[in-house]
């Protein structure tokens, strides 16, 4: 009942105390450094950095964001990497410039950055905004920027309206017609909505912005391809901060674009959290039951001892092995059989016979099962024998003692197990690649369509997104900041999931004052 007295190394014990303290300090420093690195790199990505107009010694001009600087190989001085955008002009967006070759540098306020659906960012000057085929004989610098803003807003309004129509009216109608092809009312309504959507889309086409790179090349940019426009050099720090917050929000709430290198990670956040929650729901009952059996029911002999050792060792099996197991047993074994029995009309395209949310959650549940068993068992073993005997002495059976006294007291220990399981599962990527993670699955596994939770769907995952963006994009330089930002997000998501479980545990402990008096 008493807390075990903590044995302390007195400070005077010289090297040992210092060694111990030093190890703690080094660990903390490494952890802090890691977090700082991904936080700075990740969050910096969203800052609307200024755009420099650089004139080189040979008279050439480029405009871009300076991102890095490295020493030149075999020469004096540095070279600087600029992000120049305009992939549609000459196919590349990065340029290394030797610092010594820079003749002058300015930050003109009229440089605009257009974020586009295709070809990435455009960096240059705005010449005119208007219908297709407009003449550009009288460029009117001051009025054209507000006009662009207004037109983009109008475009956004049209886009929103179209999306709303499609979501709220068009899709349900399509479903009605699908379900009942003879429903003429629905068909007519569908045709009507379709026309409306077409009209909206037509309204979005046909407007262009004429833009010009600092090198003097012109481009007629359709406005419906432009997502946003800004003039970073003209922004005040407050405006930049707001733009930064907006960028972060868009990163969190939107789907990916452009082979995952830009856009947001919302489906991946959703997939990660949902997968971890499902995993916890699956692993907790199994783990707790197994621990109860091992600790309360089984005869404490050699066999139980061996099983216990085996369980502990399972925790050390590499996760990819679980992935292989999941693929072989869940996907090809159980999944294929399920398809044959229940989804035979969909064959040969598999429903459960391919990786998906359910199989991934199950595989990770298997992976984390030992952790939950061990933690719960330790919790059960810590419950004083007087508690059990007290219940038995009142006429409770062993089952009643277990369910009414022992298990409620072991809840904090179970939650410790779940916390450890979540920490392990949320960071696993390798097994997921075999059993259901997808490079791109903009449709999250939960929607308004029956049965609402689609366990057979593939899903996106932050961990896999990091791997995919880092190694399978076509622009590594552009992917790097996204990778950092996603890594930061993954850490935060795991932290949040853990914090939830920890708060839950705290609640259960505090409810009976165990915090004050550990039994």
């Amino acid at each position, binding site marked *: *009942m008493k807390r075990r007295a903590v044995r302390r190394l007195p400070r005077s014990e010289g090297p040992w105390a210092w060694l111990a303290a030093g190890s703690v300090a080094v660990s903390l420093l490494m952890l802090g450094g890691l977090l700082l690195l991904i936080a700075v790199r990740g969050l910096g990505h969203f800052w609307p950095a200024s755009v420099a107009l650089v004139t080189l010694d040979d008279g050439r001009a480029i405009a871009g964001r300076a991102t890095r600087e490295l020493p030149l190989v075999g020469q004096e001085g540095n070279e600087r990497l600029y992000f120049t955008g305009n992939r549609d002009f000459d196919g590349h967006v990065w340029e290394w410039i030797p610092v010594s070759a820079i003749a002058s540098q300015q930050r003109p306020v009229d440089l605009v950055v257009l974020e586009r659906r295709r070809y990435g960012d455009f960096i240059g000057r705005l010449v005119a905004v208007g219908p297709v085929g407009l003449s550009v004989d009288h460029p009117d610098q001051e009025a054209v920027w507000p006009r662009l803003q207004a037109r983009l807003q109008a475009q956004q309004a049209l886009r929103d309206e179209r999306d709303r129509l499609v979501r709220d009216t068009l899709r349900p109608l399509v479903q009605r017609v699908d379900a009942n092809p003879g429903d003429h009312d629905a068909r007519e309504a569908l045709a009507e909505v379709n026309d409306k959507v077409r009209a909206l889309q037509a309204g979005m086409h046909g407007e262009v912005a004429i833009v010009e790179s600092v090198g003097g090349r012109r481009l007629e940019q359709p406005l419906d391809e432009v997502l946003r426009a800004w003039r970073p050099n003209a922004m005040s720090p407050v405006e930049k901060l707001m733009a930064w917050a907006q960028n972060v929000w868009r990163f969190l709430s939107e789907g990916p674009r452009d082979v995952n290198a830009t856009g947001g990670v919302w489906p991946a956040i959703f997939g990660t959290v949902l997968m971890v929650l499902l995993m916890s729901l699956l692993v907790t009952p199994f783990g707790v039951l197994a621990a109860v059996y091992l600790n309360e029911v089984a*005869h404490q002999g050699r066999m139980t001892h061996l099983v216990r050792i085996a369980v502990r060792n399972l925790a050390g099996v590499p996760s990819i092995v679980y992935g292989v197991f999941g693929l072989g047993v869940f996907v090809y074994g159980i999944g294929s059989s399920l398809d044959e029995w229940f989804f035979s009309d969909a064959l040969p395209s598999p429903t459960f016979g391919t990786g998906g949310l359910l199989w991934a959650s199950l595989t990770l549940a298997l992976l984390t099962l030992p952790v939950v068993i061990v933690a719960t068992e330790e919790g059960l073993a810590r419950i*004083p024998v*007087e*508690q059990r*005997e*007290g*219940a*038995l*002495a*009142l*006429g*409770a*059976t062993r089952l*009643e003692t277990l369910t*009414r*006294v022992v298990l*409620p*007291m072991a809840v904090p220990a179970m939650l410790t197990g779940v916390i450890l399981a979540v920490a392990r599962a949320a960071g696993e990527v390798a097994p997921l690649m075999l059993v259901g993670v997808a490079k791109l699955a903009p449709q999250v596994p939960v929607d308004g369509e029956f049965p609402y939770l689609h366990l057979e769907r593939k899903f996106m995952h932050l961990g896999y997104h990091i791997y995919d963006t880092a190694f399978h994009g076509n622009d590594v330089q552009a992917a790097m900041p996204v990778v950092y930002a996603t890594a930061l997000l993954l850490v935060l998501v795991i932290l949040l999931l853990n914090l939830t479980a920890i708060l839950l545990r705290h609640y259960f402990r505090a*409810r*009976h*004052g*165990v915090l*004050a*008096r550990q*039994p």
Partner: protein
Amino acid sequence: MSRPPRLQPATSGSIIDFPPEASCLAIEGLSLAYGGKSALRGISLRVPRHRVTAFIGPSGCGKSTLLRALNRLHDLNEEASHEGRILLEGQDIHSPEVAVDELRRRVGMVFQVPNPFPMSIYENVAFGLRLQGGLTRRRMDDIVEWALDAAALWGEVKDRLRASAWSLSGGQQQRLAIARALAVRPEVLLLDEPASALDPISTLKIEELIRGLKSQLTLILVTHNMQQAARVSDYTAFLQDGELVEYAPTDNLFTNPSLRRTENYITGRMA
């Protein structure tokens, strides 16, 4: 307080002859071993109804072992094996007709360490009642109040019945354990050093409580504290090395022990 009947100690010093109808529990030739290691040897004694009987003896002599045999708590220990009989109101508690949970309801127990369950004060007392089931809300409230009152705890907790039982002090927790045991109306209450973890004032309260309860049920008290045995018990059994050395009315045993070993122990001259 009524005086215990004057009974002549038997010549062996280990059996008191009071009429069988006055005894509630009878232990006959009980031996118990933990996996071959003998802990009790040939214990025979009868426990008088509505009296306090104390088991005293040096640490490790088997007092707790004997007490726990009386409500079959040893059943859970695969190591423990016994011989001999224990009769509760004339019925062998190990006979197949006796359900062990029913037996434990009739023979309640309070442990050395306070062991409130992780629930409210009310739920702790109602625990045994809920196991039996079939009580109305009102009836449950009444019994809980009665039990807490009988355990001299009602006044202290009546305003916070919904508070966690773990918020009580050690002495209160022990009285809660008594209330919890009383709520299922046992015939016998076993107390294993119930005050050994408590301060003197709480100890006094528990002792008073034990004395007051014997009008309602039979109490068996294990204690290593001879003053306590002298203060609260009517009969005292002295055990040593798993054997019953002497069993006599408490006054006799402490003032006029018939055996040398008893005298040595109570005067503090242990071998």
